[in-house]
């Protein structure tokens, strides 16, 4: 068995040694500290919980900036209770949107105030409309964006803070913007954030970097709302399994005592 183990190890080492030599075309993003442990980085913080204040600020950034173009179709207003809002606040947030409902008994669509059970109101009625209003390509839905992009939260921050003048010799086609973090560096989205672009209720200074981190936290929660429940249950399950393994090991030793 020891020989087989060294065989496997040798195989793995051979592959691993070869791996760094490959030309890396994938972009790397500076890694930030996330209190929840980055969603796309495994084992990054097994006790992680979301920073509630950052979630609320991030939601504010989404609401006031991103939601002009980006939908979050998988979220409902009722989900905002996880951000620390109470029922009255959620009802008020939902009521701030007019929802199209129907058809009513006359067969017509009508408008009503949003309720907590409603999904987030999308900026465009459908994807074609979103594409038509945005130069032919619909802005992606943000519900899962953190899990749908390599780099996760760190990618969001890099992208939000990655707008800069194109380097000499790099031509940016019209309708495009240079972004050092975006694959290909030409992105249709104009720089969405600006210093002081939102005013935080809790007095936090709304720098671009701060807003980027806040909205990335919010989007991480949106993509993985059960992260805290997962971390909490994981701890219990791991402790249980390790204890059970220990007991079984003792039982195994006891059973095999007369055979060794």
């Amino acid at each position, binding site marked *: 068995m020891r020989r087989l183990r060294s065989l496997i190890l040798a195989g793995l080492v051979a592959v691993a040694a070869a791996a760094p030599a490959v030309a890396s075309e994938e972009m790397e993003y500076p890694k930030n500290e996330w209190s929840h442990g980055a969603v796309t980085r495994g084992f990054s913080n097994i006790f992680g919980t979301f920073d509630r204040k950052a979630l609320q600020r991030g939601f504010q950034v989404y609401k006031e900036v991103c939601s002009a173009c980006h939908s979050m179709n998988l979220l*409902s207003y009722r989900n905002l209770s996880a951000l620390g809002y109470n029922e009255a606040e959620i009802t008020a947030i939902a009521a701030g949107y007019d929802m199209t409902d129907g058809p009513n008994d006359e067969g017509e669509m009508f408008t009503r105030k949003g309720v907590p059970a409603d999904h987030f109101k999308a900026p465009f009625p459908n994807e074609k409309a979103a594409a038509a209003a945005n130069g032919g390509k619909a802005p992606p839905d943000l519900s899962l964006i953190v899990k749908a992009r390599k780099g996760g939260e760190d990618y969001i921050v890099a992208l939000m803070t990655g707008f800069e003048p194109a380097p000499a010799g790099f031509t940016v086609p019209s309708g495009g913007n240079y972004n050092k973090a975006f694959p290909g560096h030409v992105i249709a989205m104009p720089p969405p954030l600006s210093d002081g672009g939102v005013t935080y209720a809790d007095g936090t200074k709304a720098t671009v970097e701060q807003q980027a981190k806040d909205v990335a936290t919010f989007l991480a929660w949106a993509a993985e709302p059960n992260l805290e429940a997962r971390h909490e249950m994981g701890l219990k399950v791991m402790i249980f399994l390790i204890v059970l393994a220990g007991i079984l090991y003792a039982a195994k030793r006891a059973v095999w*005592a*007369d055979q060794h």
Partner: protein
Amino acid sequence: MADTTQTAGHGPGSGSHSGGDPTRRDFIYLAAAATGVVGAAVTAWPFIDSLNPAADTLALASTDVDLAPVQVGQSITVTWRGKPVFIRHRTPEEIKSAVDVNVSELRDPQTDAARAKKPEWLIVVGICTHLGCIPLGQKNSDPRGEYGGWFCPCHGSVYDTSGRIRKGPAPRNLEVPSYAFKTDTSIRIG
């Protein structure tokens, strides 16, 4: 087939060991089995609980109804939690016949006042308490049974104008959902 005299729980090995203290060994086996069984039982819970109503189902658990267009003597049916809810704007005669009942003679004794927050509006879940059919009686042309309420065509249960069971196999009165009057003419069910 000679050596099947031992029960499955006691393998041939467990009694014949040379090393170790038997009490301690038995304790370890017991602890291992007990911990394993507890773990399996706890593991079953998430799988069972996943069959309970999901968060989005629970979030849609209330329905708002505007009562203004419903005339006296008219009934409407609205959907609440996927079930029909009967809303009847009762006539004074219907209210009277519902109130003038000797409650102690009923199969499921309940006063009309306990069932209708405002006497002119009766709001009940339109599902027969026998086996879940939808009773007739919402349209004026429907058979309503001899007590003027509802009649279940499946097995002949008869409900009165308060939705109480009067005849037939159903064991209980039509269920009154939790509801509240938001204004005089609008309610929220659930």
